């Protein structure tokens, strides 16, 4: 499975792209970095990775013409945003002033540091609860995934949420809308279950091909 599928990894100069490449290579899935908006449509699916800050990332996407490029392919192929990549799919973020891509009716807020002993960044393994869409096939409820973030996604539209997690407060750690998916954790750094999630995404791409 996957050998005839080609995944584009959107390259906008953000953090740990190599880890995503390593994970797809390990799964035997063809993948390529892509920064040219003209060729996005050639892939069977796209991954928007990312660590870093919201405004820098939006600037960097828009300087490369990738905001328009992504907008024009968004209904034609499955897209997975990871970590900051998920946050960019939302309408706005407290981390910055720029609007996000706005594909998913959700917003990004800073993790509240309240009187409890909550440390920010939320860094480490945490449970992913009540996961239910195709990305979580063969992944049990309450599986641990690796998180690294200081901002989190919230939404008023519960139908978008496909898994939630808790760090002090509850937040959306996975959402989907049609073939647009976002995960706050790092599947490429979450061992066997993370690789299963990426394989599931590849299978979604295969089904849409």
């Amino acid at each position, binding site marked *: 499975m996957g050998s005839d599928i080609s995944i584009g990894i959107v390259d906008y100069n953000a953090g740990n792209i190599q880890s995503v490449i390593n994970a797809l290579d390990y799964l035997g899935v063809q993948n390529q970095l892509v920064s040219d908006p003209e060729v996005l449509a050639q892939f069977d699916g796209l991954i928007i990775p990312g660590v870093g800050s919201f405004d820098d990332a939006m600037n960097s996407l828009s300087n490369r013409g990738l905001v328009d490029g992504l907008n024009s392919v968004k209904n034609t192929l499955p897209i997975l945003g990871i970590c900051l990549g998920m946050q960019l799919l939302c309408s706005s973020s407290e981390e910055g002033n720029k609007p996000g891509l706005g594909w998913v009716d959700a917003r990004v807020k800073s993790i509240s540091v309240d009187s409890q002993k909550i440390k920010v960044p939320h860094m480490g*393994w945490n449970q992913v609860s009540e996961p239910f869409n195709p990305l979580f096939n063969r992944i049990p409820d309450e599986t641990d995934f690796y998180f690294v973030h200081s901002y989190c996604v919230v939404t008023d539209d519960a139908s978008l949420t496909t898994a939630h997690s808790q760090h002090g407060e509850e937040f959306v750690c996975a959402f989907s809308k049609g073939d647009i998916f976002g995960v706050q954790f790092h599947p490429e750094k979450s061992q066997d279950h993370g690789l299963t999630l990426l394989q599931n995404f590849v299978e979604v791409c295969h089904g849409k091909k």
Partner: protein
Amino acid sequence: MVKNRLIASIIVRDGRVVQSERFKHTNVIHYDAIHAVDNFTRWSVDEIVLINVSRDSNGQQQFRELLSYVSKKCFVPVTAGGWINDMDYGLSLISSGCDKLIVNTALHENPDLVTRLIQRLGKQCLVASIDYKYIEGEPVVCVDRGEKPIGVDPVSWAKQLDNMAVGEIYLNCIDHDGKRKGYDLEVLSQVSRAVSIPIIAFGGVFRWQHLLDGLEAGADAVAAANIFHYTEHATKKAKRFLMDAGINIREPRFIN
């Protein structure tokens, strides 16, 4: 809630895994870094830290190649560092597959570099290593592989680094390194109360109980090096011990 983490630190000199004792890295462990990483990840370790302690900067390229090789099949987070003294080298480690950088001397000698790395990569990518030793009974932070005291105590230094916006602190008492008596719990506890970012304790673990002591003193994550190299299923057993003691940690299992 986020779980406590067990971290395996792998100390590398000239491409070989070495044992560390009071920062004298003389004993080559006859074990490739790739095998160490393979085993620890199979045994449920939560994270890997790879530190290059080569005596001069000539080891930079070799270390980067090692990192690139190791990270291809390592699907837990990898932190790498040692000899990060310019932007290009730091970024080249990230593009070689590590997820975070660990810096020590640069925090004191070149804070501007650290700030630029944070701006470029985000604070969660920067782990600040604090080495300290007791001089006339007082803990003093040292840089340059533990050789140069900077006249600041670890608690004040941790607060300054928190203000500098690093993502985590990796705290090591040089006097405890390789001494098998557990972490320096008093300073660990003071530092973890003084800052709001996660603290990783390192240095001196000889029994699983020492890991538990570190977490109870306030560490968010506990790291060790030497001990994991000499026990079959080491990191899995360590986690089982912590879990049985009631620690909230990712379940130990054999992961293929």
